[in-house]
């Protein structure tokens, strides 16, 4: 069980927290301007690195604040914890690539072309 250092409550057991997926994926300012592929990229595409990963956690059983964690997905070593809105630590570049704020598709796949029923 991970020991996660909540920026407010300090180290607590993992089961007090809720995982929130990859961090720093900002919602596009005007979704209507995006192509289906761009929107699908924001919606579905996430990094799955072997190594450092920046991700969101929420202290569900505690102060209920969302915050960011930089965690090594192999060793589970947590290398940084920082609050929402704070810049990620510059010390090491995470293995995760990309940042959805650019709204540049990371994949060429167009979900609209999936076989009918595939998305239901």
């Amino acid at each position: 069980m991970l020991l996660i250092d909540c920026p407010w409550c300090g180290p607590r057991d993992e089961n007090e927290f809720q995982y929130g997926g990859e961090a720093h994926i900002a919602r596009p300012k005007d979704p209507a301007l995006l192509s289906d592929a761009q929107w699908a990229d924001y919606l579905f595409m996430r990094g799955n690195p072997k190594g450092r990963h920046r991700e969101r956690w929420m202290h569900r059983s505690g102060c209920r604040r969302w915050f960011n964690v930089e965690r090594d997905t192999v060793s589970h070593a947590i290398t940084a914890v920082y609050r929402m809105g704070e810049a990620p630590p510059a010390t090491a570049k995470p293995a995760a690539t990309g940042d959805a704020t650019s709204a540049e598709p990371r994949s060429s796949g167009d979900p609209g072309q999936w076989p009918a029923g595939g998305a239901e």
Partner: protein
Amino acid sequence: MSEQSHRLDAAAAPGRIDRGHPLRFVFNGRGYEGFAGDTLASALIANGVHLVGRSFKYHRPRGIVGSGSEEPNALVQLRTGERTEPNVRATQAELFDGLIASSQNCWPSVGFDLGAINDMASRILPAGFYYKTFMWPPSAWMFYEGLIRRAAGLGRAPDDPDPDRYEKRFAHCDVLVVGAGPAGLAAALAAARAGARVVLCDEQAEMGGQLLAHPRGVGAVIDGRPALDWASAALGELASNKDVTLLPRTTCFGYYDHNALALAERVADHVAKPRQFQPRQRLWKLRARRVVLATGAIERPLVFRDNDRPGIMLAGSAAAYGMRYGAAVGRRVLVFTNNDSAYRAALALFDAGVGIAGIVDLRPAASGKPVEDARARGIEVLAGWALTATDGPSKVRAALAMQLDEAGAGVQGPIRRIECDAIAMSGGWNPAVHLYSQARGKLRYDGAQGIFLPGRTEQALAVAGSCNGAWSLGACLAEGAAAGAAAAEAAGFTAASAPAPAAAEENDSPARLLWVVPSDRPLGEGGKHFVDFQNDVTAADIGLAVREGYKSVEHLKRYTTSGMGTDQGKLGNVHALGILAEVTAAEPGAVGTTTFRPPYTPVGFGTLAGRDVGALADPVRTTAMHGWHVAAGAVFEDVGQWKRPHYYPRPGESLHDAVNREVKAARTGVGILDASTLGKIDIQGPDAAEFLNRIYTNAWTKLEIGRARYGFMCREDGMVFDDGVTTRLAAGHFHMTTTTGGAARVLSWLEEWAQTEWPELRVYMTSVTEQWAVAAIAGPHARALLAKVGTGIDLDAKAFPFMAMREGNVAGIPARVFRISFTGELSYEINVPARYGMALWQALMAAGAEFGITPYGTEAMHVLRAEKGFVIVGQDTDGTVTPIDLGMDWIVSKAKDFIGKRSLSRADTARGDRKQLVGLLTDDPRVVLPEGGQIVAELKPEPPMAMLGHVTSSYFSANLDRSIALALVRNGRQRIGAALHVPLADRNIRVKVVEPKFIDPEGRRQDG
């Protein structure tokens, strides 16, 4: 009652037993006597009993091999009746008066075992036998499996509930020390003296580790005094320190991420019956800032021909039985070794009065102090010799020895037969790296010693003593003290620089590594070289598996079963790897080990469950009116953790009778529902309306104060996430309701968007789900009922219209009354502070008597809303349904953005032929469709048929006197009026597709 035939003289071998405290016990139906301080194994040995079971596959007679948790053979069924427990290691079962145990895996008795025919037939039971024989055809395994399991049968689970109590607890410490041998004691002392909070655990009943048992402890000196005195002083010091927790009888069985560890404490396993409220076992969930692993080492057997006869055991264990328990494993013990440690065992046994038949040493040039000491006592040492066979039907009675050739690949010269009644073997010692490895520590292979040692780890841990490859007492103490001090320092304490406890160093001669001891016959012929005793895996099996292509260590384990079972190969694993490496001409270090996983030793389900059983298994959530429902005889339904009234049967009524009555009452008179479990969120702030605009699919900015609106929330993928009615209490103040199941999820969802995406919006959310108890009254008489109890509110339909909220005093209780309806009838949801929930309910029931007020449960609620075509999120939707799919285009704003909006125009989401919500009417009005039933357009004699969707809700509607159903059907809107089919296993049901509104489609009834 027999005398203890093999108990050693108290003066020569006092041991740690209390000879003044005899205990009676029964093994395999026969009475014996032992002493307090014995284990079942030591007491059996003291009575000359070695044969304790039959092996798993060949049913060969097996004896006690070890003296602790490594024991592969001596698994017994302990106790009887409801407390019976299988697979208990006799070496760890402490004796208590009245203990009853029996052998397992033998039928009809351990002495005469029908399964032993397997041994004679062993040519047809090679490695991978089960896979080869029983797996084809696939259906045959179902038949064979039962037979095999019965024949193998490792013990029996009790038939009755466990009467004992099991507990769990959390714990925290600065330094956890696992293992209370010399290294662990030194570590705990150093850390405790630095001021750290220390937990010291050890799987044995008495702390001291090898000091209690190993010959090193006898006559060994630490800091100038007898080692055991030092240990007892150390334990005294630790026990008197209030920040030290000593946990004997406690196995650290799991090492998880970030120094989370699981410990199983056997609190009352050593007594016949726990005291009242005393747990039998306790699970410790411990978080340690630093960990010192001082888990010691486990002796290795030697893999020689017929090395499994009862009486053949580990040399260190033979010494432990003599030294710690005063029990002689034999009267004439033959020692077979590749290293010096067995010499010390032999010397200790000899000095305690046990006859030593000789020492057979694989090393041709055995020399050094232990060898000299043995020879000085007149013990014959056969250096460069090997045992090539053993003899004895149910216990070893002789061994054959021959001289090894130079390479150790074969034997030569004359055969010597050596009479003996026990063989003490030692193939060296494996560091107990299990926990280290569980902690994802990398192991490194030491080729000279043939052992795996701790290498590198990212956890905050240190390894000390023989689990780190330190073999002398002095080195163990020094490593322990250093690790303990360093751990305390790392945890923020300052350790005084005190010298480590000192003991003399011993310089052992190197061992001779022979993974398989050769005999005069080819491997696999004329006898068996056992590698894994518990799973009956031989050296020949490993060779065969490799020839068949199972060269990966993980494949080898699964194919041969070597290293499986309750002992997980604590004795034989490294031999199996060594043999694999030898056969494949690889380095054992390159072959690697199988993965060490928790638990280190088996843990009972009771220990893991703790008190999460019975009424405490899961919280039962009840509302303020629960007591009334119980008294009214309600049948309850679990809705998440809530207990909600499902229906209120009158005497003689079935579920359907009651529901039919309840739904009619709500449409003709007045019904009352406990709606307290609905989620409620108080939303405040200048940007609250803008926040709702973004969360809900419809618009909120213009909602008037005091008015309510129904809304859908979607996920960003456009699928319906939750629904509910939200009311504007003030310009910047809203009261949101959610589904019962969605209460926590929705609040979390709102907080997520507010905190992470739109921190600029000034809005605060607070859960008020349980602040308010809610009674929903529905039916034509609802307004009259309210008027009767008194509200202080103008109830006129114009003054208090549909979808409005008024504050007042209902029956004298301060209340918020919402005119909203989930039934389609005139309806009020009366919210009062939960403390008054019961009073409100009672007042409404009393006043409602004249209107025939009828409490209705969740089943009637479901029928009533289905009659109106109101969906239930999670029942009529499943995470793949958009508001458009539900035919609710009107609730989706075109003008503003909201979560999920962009997804609604994605090509797939915007398809016109998606599954859409429709109503279904069966041709036969009495037939109620099964929920989940698949819907097809074209019937075929048998599947597959093209499935168009499924029935999501289906009921008998007493108000319509016919069945009704809601369904999601592909292109359903276009099929209104068409006939479809619901094929079932035994019949097909024809249905007509209709609008999903069965009663009052114009919505006239809600005004009463």
